[in-house]
């Protein structure tokens, strides 16, 4: 197998604009990408084993946390009255938000014909899928009795004539999240089929052949197959596109539909969607940067990709910051003393003022360096900023959920909240679950869409295109 010539002939190409390094052919792309999957275990970078180990330990922690919860109830968490929602809801919103970048990249950017999406879309979609898997755990576990949630939350005809209460945003969540999860899975898998067939064809042993053979659904690469594939993929992209906006809007209704000061705001849907994309790109960068370097994928995930994502992070981050400013404005504009107290007094100066200040630090101040190209092109800086933003977006949900709840209308019921060790156990457990899935994916599934990459090289193009 020929070793791809990385950057050998591309010295004069501007890597800031290129979506793929020059000198690649169909063969080199296939070889490079499938190499990651087919290389012997001993070739797997050591640190991946490290991450798996950490992930495995955290998954064990997740299982213990879930078991403890199911046996004893939500009392093991830090919840109380008035703060009846805590980590579970924060984490749900956080994970769902993270997933959004994947859908945005694969669906909206596809429809907008943004070629730079190609090398990162599969990776981002996988991230979406795994983030949704983590997110889905929380609303189910949140009641402490998930078996009942399944029983009552899904509408089905029953002898009692009882339907769920369709006025409740939580029911909207059920549909929003399940639709989102299903479409994301289909979209991801559909996009994988041609590459799975490639993998099948390049299989080195029987197991791989059978496994990839089944998964590739009999793909032979005929014109009819390609025709059907393109249609299906486009349709799914069309389906996914409104979901990018709707899922987090619906999640935001959980808050904005209620009458709690700090939740009851019309800005929530766009503000949540922007926050979701913001968090999502932060997570994509957080994962892409080390993977890109570990598997030497700089030719496919170029500086341009990173810069574009950084730009999107900056834009959505500024939208989110605008949301923070608008919350203050709304509070004063409403003249509602409860709103003014909740937003303008209790958040910046209440008992959780440090959490609020950290939020502003993470989500507004920390992204300002992205205005500079030097920062955008530095993987170290990008990774650090993405990390800070991920924390910031978690804090944002903490601020919304906890700070609004802990001091509401009647001062007599005011109380404090802090997550218990089981809250943290469950949260870290899902992070471990996510990491495990993510790096299993990286190792065992072609993480870059090979056939799509091939469209980017000159020989794959019907007509020449210039990026500009």
């Amino acid at each position, binding site marked *: 197998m020929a070793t791809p010539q990385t950057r050998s002939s591309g010295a004069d190409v501007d890597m800031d604009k290129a979506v793929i390094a020059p000198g690649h052919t169909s063969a080199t792309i296939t070889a490079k990408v499938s190499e990651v999957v087919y290389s012997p275990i001993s070739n797997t970078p050591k640190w991946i084993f490290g991450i798996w180990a950490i992930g495995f330990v955290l998954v064990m922690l997740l299982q213990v946390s879930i078991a403890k919860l199911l046996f004893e109830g939500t009392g093991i968490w830090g919840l*109380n*009255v008035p703060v*009846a*929602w805590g980590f579970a809801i924060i984490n749900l919103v956080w994970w769902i938000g993270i997933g959004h970048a994947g859908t945005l990249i694969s669906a909206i950017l596809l429809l907008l014909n943004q070629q730079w999406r190609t090398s990162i879309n599969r990776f981002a979609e996988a991230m979406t899928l795994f983030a949704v898997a983590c997110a889905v755990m929380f609303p189910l576990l949140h*009641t402490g009795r998930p078996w009942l949630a399944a029983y009552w939350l899904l509408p089905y005809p029953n002898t009692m004539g009882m339907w769920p209460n369709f006025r409740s945003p*939580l029911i909207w969540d059920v549909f929003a999240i399940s639709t989102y999860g299903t479409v994301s899975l289909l979209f991801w898998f559909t996009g994988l089929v041609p590459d799975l067939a490639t993998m099948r064809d390049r299989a080195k042993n029987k197991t791989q052949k059978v496994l990839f053979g089944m998964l590739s659904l009999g793909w032979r690469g005929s014109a009819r197959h390609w025709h059907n594939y393109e249609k299906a993929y486009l349709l799914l992209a069309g389906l996914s596109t409104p979901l990018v906006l709707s899922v987090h809007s619906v999640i935001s209704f959980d808050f904005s539909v209620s009458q709690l000061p700090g939740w009851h705001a019309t800005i929530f849907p766009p503000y949540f969607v922007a926050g979701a994309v913001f968090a999502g790109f932060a997570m994509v960068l957080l994962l892409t940067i080390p993977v890109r370097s570990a598997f030497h994928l700089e030719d496919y995930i170029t500086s341009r990709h990173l810069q574009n994502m950084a730009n999107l992070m900056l834009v959505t981050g500024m939208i989110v910051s605008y949301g923070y400013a608008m919350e203050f404005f709304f509070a004063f504009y409403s003249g509602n003393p409860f709103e003014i107290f909740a937003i303008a007094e209790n958040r910046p100066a209440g008992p959780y003022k440090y959490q609020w200040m950290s939020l502003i630090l993470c989500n507004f101040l920390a992204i300002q360096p992205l205005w500079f190209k030097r920062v955008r092109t530095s993987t170290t800086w990008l990774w650090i900023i993405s990390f800070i933003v991920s924390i910031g977006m978690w804090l944002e949900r903490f601020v919304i959920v906890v700070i609004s709840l802990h001091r509401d209308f009647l*001062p007599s019921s005011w109380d404090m909240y802090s997550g218990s060790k089981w809250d943290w156990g469950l949260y870290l457990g899902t992070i471990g679950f996510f990491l495990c899935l993510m790096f299993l994916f990286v190792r065992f599934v072609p993480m870059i869409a090979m056939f799509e990459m091939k469209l980017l090289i000159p020989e794959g193009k019907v007509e020449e295109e210039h990026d500009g």
Partner: protein
Amino acid sequence: MESRLSEPSEETTQMKESQTNRLPNAPSETSAPASAVNTLVDAQEHLAASKGPSYWRSLEDLAATPQFEEMVHREFPRQAAEWDGQVDRRKFLTLAGASLGLAGLTACSKQPGEKIIPYVRQPEELVPGKPLFFATSMPLDGYARGVLAESHMGRPTKLEGNPEHPASLGGTDLYAQASVLGLYDPDRSQVVTHLGKIATWSAFVDALAARRGTLEALGGEGLRILTGTTTSPTVIRLMAQLAEKMPQARWHQMDTTGHSNRRAGTEMALGVDAETHYDFTQADVVLALDSDFLNHGPGAVRYSKDFSSRRQVADPSVAEGMSRLYSVESAMNGLSTVADHRLALRPTEVAKMALAIASRLGAVDSPALGGFDEGDMAIWADEIAADLRQAGGRAVVVAGDQTSPELHAVAHAINAALGSVGTTVFYTEPVAAPVVGQEGSFAQLLADIASDQVETLLILGVNPVYAAAAGQDVPALLSKVKLRVHLGTHQDETSEHCHWHIPESHFLESWGDLRAFDGTVSICQPLIQPLYGGKSVIEVLGALLGLATTTAEDLVRETLQGAAPTGADFERLWRRSLHDGQVADSAATVLTGAVNGEAVATAAQSLASGPAADIQLSFRPDSRVFDGRFANNAWLQECPDTITKLTWDNALLMSPATAETLGFGDLVVGNDQRSDAPMARLTVGECSMEVPVWVVPGQADGSLVLPLGYGRRRAGGIGTGQGFDAGQVRPAESLWQVTDGVSVERLEGTYQLASTQDHHSMEDRHLVRAASLEAYRKDPEHAGAQHLHVDPSLSMMDGTDYPYDKHRWGMSIDLTSCTGCNACLVACQSENNIPVVGKDEVLNGREMHWIRIDRYFGGHSGQVEEIVNQPVPCMQCEQAPCEVVCPVAATVHSDEGLNDMVYNRCVGTRYCSNNCPYKVRRFNFFLYQDFETPSLQLGRNPDVTVRSRGVMEKCTYCVQRISSARITAKRENRKIREGEVVTACQGACPSDAIAFGDLNDAESQVAKRKASPLDYSLLVELGNRPRTTYLGRIRNTNPSLLQKLDPAGVSHQTDHSGGH
């Protein structure tokens, strides 16, 4: 009730009869198909075709056709679908598998086998599912409180006030409400023990009989009996018999709550032993001197009723003559929260203020009172004295039980000077057993034991080892007594040191008699057989007297018979008294007492001259566990204190300024209180103890308060080890107040105190709306913040409601009357099977009380002027925010306007709680309810679902009571009448602060209250339209006092009450 009960049983029998009547017909109906010739259709055709009447001798005759023969031989009638396909192997296995699977499915929820055995002979009036009510009396501190006990199938589950009993008038207190749990307390002592080994009652009776011979020979020398305060005529009679038989025997009484001071004070002032009681319906001006007469003392429930009858200002006629209450106090309590004027002073200063007022009224020739003849104190004294003088005989001065006898004497002198004896103050012959100097009585016993004069000691129903003061080494002394017998509800600190322990029966399982605060004799009748074979004081005394074979019932009957007028039909009197819960016209004779001026002058002198340090300490029976006797009652332990809102603990209470002086300044930050309280070493004379410090805004500076009743070493699973034992520092010579030699030193380390309300201020939110009576009279519509209404045109709703043409339930809570006594809270817990969560869970903010009492401190420029209570049950909103957000429709609106919870539909998303602005919803974060302990299962209300883990719950307006009334009304084909549904909180409230009823009935009390200009909705601006509304708080402030204290008029504006 009784007539209602018998009806359903008649119905059921009728039904049964009609069913059995039908039976003989049945075979003929079912035999019709059999007589068909071939198939039904064929048979019909066959019969239709036959002309004229046809007769047959037998069925065989009719059916003697080949078709019929064939049909009989066929296994399935022709209509039945037959499976004539080939039974191949696959199909067979498919079906076998399916049936196996389906059979397995049906086995999924197999219920454990249960035997239901009906009564062979139904007891009279007992209908399963229908409660019966019996009048009885609850003893508290020896005095009777009349109650009606609700009995379900022979199990008492709930107590209500007895409307006919003078000490209740229908109200109760939290102790009565919690006593049901006391009955079923699994930690109660269950067997007689001798030297720690299980013994029997008869063994004890034999042992006592053996002893009796020797004792009688000695004339009872060496026999001592220690009881608590006793009013029981039977106990007194048996004691008299004992004194006759054994003249050398001595009876000691132990006062653990301080009312012997009241008695001593009366004796000091009048020269005779007399009982004092008050009539607050006649009192225009009341001065309370360190007193909480509304919540403490034998007449508290009655006094609350009477007092609030003059404060229900929604009624214009009451508003005209609203009474005024001044409270001069060193400790805060429920009374402080309803006082029109509060003056917080150190204990010695309270006495001096009393003297200053007394001298202004000419009641005593006051000695010089440094500081009380000038400045603000003089203004207070002048104004209060002037107000009292103006009211004259319609004024009353009440000194608290725990204040010194001297202060009581001065209060009597003031009352005499005002001429209020006979209108608001009454003296009667003593109600409690005539043992002089009760406080000394226990000390005398200890002295006698020390000098080896005691050989046999019966400790009946008290716990002297725990209740002893510092320095009284009761265990060591007890070891000198040869035979020690303890009768107690629990194996406690005292039973450890006694040879015999007899389980004491609960008042709900024993016969007895008691007298109320005014002397009315009340009968206690058992509702249930003693759960653990417990015995009462009467039975033990009976055994001592050799009357072990006479039942307690007979002993009580004999007492009553002895007191009954001769010639009366005793059986009739007995049944009447049993039914009413009291013996008619048995109140104590009223005495005319004249105050002995000289004695009062001496008392005044001693009050004025005693030591008075800057830091003084008071001990008070706790507002929940009392003197410690209720320490094992989880409902009371978890009940938040009226002022501190602490649960499960006591603490050293002090004002913010005192905290600052003593080095606890960091506790006073803003309006929040942290749960980790710093520990302090409290030293009184030689003794010291470690205790956490809790700051109480508004408490008198320099006055420390330490509630009693905590730090029990051996109380049971609930009470052991909770809180701190004040007995460690309580000097025997001064049980209630220490005016000198108190010091507090801050220690390292903190202690977690579980308070249910950490935030003190109302944050300028108009939650409790208040106005002065003056302002209210001037402009009822706009006094206070009553004008804060919301323009209905702002609503997006079209304003049309569901018509609610049946009933429209609503509640009104009068904030002027509420004393924060917690009776409603515990009543609700008892009625609605509300679990207890424990201290850790209260610290986590997960208490389950369906009704809570919010307490806010209000005042100006950091000075706490008033404390306001606001009971908050579910508001039952018309536009309930909880209903919209529940994904599973577990909380829905009923056609009578209730916001119902459907427990078995609730999955526990807790969204409803988040969206409830009142935060009245409670969530079972864990499995809080005890499903295991058998005795607790007995005490539950069978009409209310017992909630499990993961379920949201909240106030239902006692929907089970509404349903029960609805069933009765339906059967009588009428609507539910006013007063037919009484919620648990409403029924328990001793101050009638809660009204409940049908808003569709314009004549109902609640509808009338809602028509008052004082009526307002909590958080009206949210548009939830609560069904529970409040009557604004009206204070009858003294304008002249306010004017003089603050000529600039800053604090005049009590109108916009609420917080600072």
